[in-house]
């Protein structure tokens, strides 16, 4: 069913929730949120002058193409988020990044060892390749985080049981 003809479909939402392996883009006062980041990494991008921001909740340091979940791997998530932020009106030369997450909550050896650190490294590397500066970060540690990004103020609010609320 096409939702265009339904009432309300033109109102901008107050908040856009971003699930695991997904990304979202918003403008103005619409906040982007994601909850329960553990070893996954959250990447926020914005052009502060254009009031445009995006947020991805990426899960794996590398991986295959997965169209259903566009931000499953960090490199693809960052590239797709960047393209989406640009098509929403961000100037590529002004885009900045803030990253959070990548904690090491569990200490098991084996195939997933240090996945949090590797997610953060992959985010930094992909952003550097795309020429996007990382202006703030809150990564690592052994605790979970929830994120909220406001495009208008370009504030990344990180909430955790460990540090309370921190604004980046």
């Amino acid at each position, binding site marked *: 069913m096409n939702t265009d003809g339904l009432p309300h479909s033109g109102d901008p939402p107050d908040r856009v929730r971003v*699930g*695991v392996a997904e990304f979202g883009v918003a403008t103005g006062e619409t906040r982007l949120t994601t909850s*329960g*980041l553990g070893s996954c990494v959250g990447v926020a991008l914005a052009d502060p002058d254009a009031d445009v921001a995006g947020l991805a909740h990426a*899960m794996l340091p590398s991986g295959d193409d997965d169209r259903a979940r566009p931000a499953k791997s960090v490199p693809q998530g960052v590239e797709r988020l960047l393209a989406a932020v640009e098509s929403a009106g961000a100037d590529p030369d002004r885009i900045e990044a803030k990253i959070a997450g990548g904690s090491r*909550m569990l200490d098991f050896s084996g195939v997933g060892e240090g996945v949090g650190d590797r997610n953060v490294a992959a985010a930094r590397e992909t952003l550097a390749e795309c020429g996007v500066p990382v202006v703030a970060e809150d990564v690592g540690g052994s605790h*979970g985080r929830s994120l909220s990004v406001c495009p208008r103020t370009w504030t990344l609010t990180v909430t955790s*049981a460990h540090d309370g609320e921190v604004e980046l």
Partner: protein
Amino acid sequence: MNVDVESLGSFSRTAHEGAERAAGNLTGMTGIETAVDVTAVTLASAEALVRDDRRVGVVVDFEGEITGTSVLSFPPEGVETLLDALLAGDGLDESAVREVGNVVTSGFIDAWADRLETTIDIAPPRYVPDIGANSLDEMTLERDYGFVFRSRVSAVGEELDFSFHMFPDPDSMQAMLTDGGDEIPVEKLATLREMAQSGATTASESVSAMTGIETTVDISNLSFVPVEDVPAELTDRSHVGTVLGFGDEPQGYVLILFDEPSAREVVAALVPDADAETFDPMARSAIREIGNVMTSSFVDGWANVRDTTIEISTPQFVHDMGRAVADSVVARLGQRQAFAFVFDATLRADDRAFDCQIYALPDESELRAMLEDIDRGATAERTTKAGSL
């Protein structure tokens, strides 16, 4: 009936796409932003619809390439939110909810119709004021050994969570899930679910024996989900518990998570001198101890079936958002597989508020080993009881 794992994965994606459309339709009607939390293929979870809390439902029969019944259900608060948003006049509640049910269900069914390149007819929606055991019988749902597509959608900043269950009839299921090479007999999955259920019961008995808090298994499911959907099964409220790996790699994880008040009760029962407010080292060690015992009880049943022992790691204490704990587990599991079979159980106490959730996530190799080892004789017997499936 055998099910093909590839088909399960691809149908799980169609179900997710349907949930996205349904959520979009609801947003279009009400102006309330919604998001899809979870889409899972669950083995025989008609019982999960029958819960203590009252839920208002809209039941829709559909017919075509796939035939079956769907149930959309809301908690009563959700219905109030809906009616407020729709400005329904007095006495029109039922028809307003039916209309919402119609529009939302169309979203789900359209995704299936597109995927199968066909049309699927949907019958007029029926309003069910309280989804419960009687209604299940009225709906003549396949209770056993069938698959159910389950989605949960929640609203942003509003009380408007809803669940959608789709119960295809056995013939449709057969057509949908058995066209590939990599097949698992569905009876074995049913056996796996029974093993996990009995493991959860034993774990619950261990809690009762250790703490004196009488607990029982309230809900349990065996679901097939994209790994990234697992965290949304949990809330972002703070939980206290343990994560254990089993096998040497590890080949899977068991999460035992209490809500904070329940964790404090457990600590008070086990070590009255510990500081349960801050979870001091003594309290943490008590939580690790009970997590260890519960996990051992839980996997013992599996070990018996496989006629082997299953090594479990030392328990790791966690005190964090439930979702963040699961997020850390799936970031590990997701390196090798896109989907996981997840067993979950909720333990509750009869005489007080108590909430403990158990999640078991074997990795693909472990799951295959378990399925290999499930005794074919026992499977055959169950097949007979289950009838045509």
